[in-house]
């Protein structure tokens, strides 16, 4: 039930955002993340953006993933 997925904000209309989730477009509310801007990645849960994702941290995890893949 706590499943949440990353989504890219494409446009904003008040607290309603249109987001892209791996090619699927959906509406989401930024009621819980009023600081979210167009171009931000947010973590989306049950129709709400619950966090603006820290891209620097995300890149570090991706780099770690690549390192593991290269080692494997």
């Amino acid at each position, binding site marked *: *039930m*706590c*499943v*949440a997925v990353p989504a890219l904000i494409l446009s904003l209309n008040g607290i309603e955002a249109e987001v892209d989730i791996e090619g699927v477009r959906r509406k989401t*509310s930024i*009621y*819980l*993340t*009023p600081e979210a801007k167009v171009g931000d990645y947010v*973590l989306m*849960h*049950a*129709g*709400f953006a*619950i*966090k603006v*994702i*820290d*891209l620097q*941290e*995300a890149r*570090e*995890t991706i780099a*770690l*993933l690549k390192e*593991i893949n290269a080692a494997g």
Partner: protein
Amino acid sequence: MEFCGSHTAAILKYGIRQLLPAGVEMLSGPGCPVCVTDQADIDRAIALAKVPGVILCTFGDMLKVPGTYSSLQQARAEGCDVCMVYSTLDALDIARANPDKPVVFLGVGFETTAPTIAASIAQAKQQQIKNYSVFSLAKLCPPVMKALLDGGEIKIDGIICPGHVSTIIGSKPYEFIPREYGVACVVAGFEPVDILMAVDQLLVQLGNGRPRVEIAYGRTVSPEGNVRAQELLAEVFEPQTARWRGVGEVGGSGYRIRDRYKEFDTERLFDIKTGPAKEPAGCRCGDVLRGVIRPTACPLFGHACTPERPVGPCMVSGEGACASYYLFGESDGR
């Protein structure tokens, strides 16, 4: 112990248990909101669905959970108006479209979901949607972690803390765990590499004998969490004692709707009466949720109880430990 059912699902799906060195055992915890919902509360939800005129909105996971005599799915088949929604905002839309009917949202979830429930109540008040209410069964995780540790039934060396619960509450609420119980804590994400990183950090903490709270999911978790969401939770809810399946009553582990929003509290609008609740004979979901047994040790597992015909809630939810063990073929009892 991985607290969260989504961690259990990822650990089994990606075969992480088989990758770990001997001596490292992963144990699934009570982190599945559907699974820990008390049998009496399931019965009350079904009773609500049967009130003439009521539209009951719920997340899909709750539909198949067996109550003492029935399930929401069965109630729907019998003609009750039970709607599956993906968001509380969908439930608000249903309330707007049906102003002459009471629309009840079945508020099951942890701190991840509770702010979305609080947001719907705040918006209903602001927009004067008078036929919307919430049957709040929402729960908090740290108090039940404390209850498990106090229970002392199982020896836990480290806890993988729930990633999306922590996105909201931050990592600070776990600090009592290493301080008072000497148990290591790492907040983890849900990719296989996130979980491996968390196990690694737990082992390092245990190796150097200095347990603390670490975050291995920094892209969405901070020590403070989502302060806006926490403020909204505090505005709409207050903590109350709640009953957890398998664990029993845990003080301060439930979200009750505050008096200032009482007109949106289903429990204060309806007199919900049910007979005594009874858990299914032979079902050991309670022991699974406390980490006392693995799902495969339940006599019903895979025979009388399967995802198609679940007897207990841990076989229903995608986050339920039994469903994960069943789906990903883990049956060696390791």
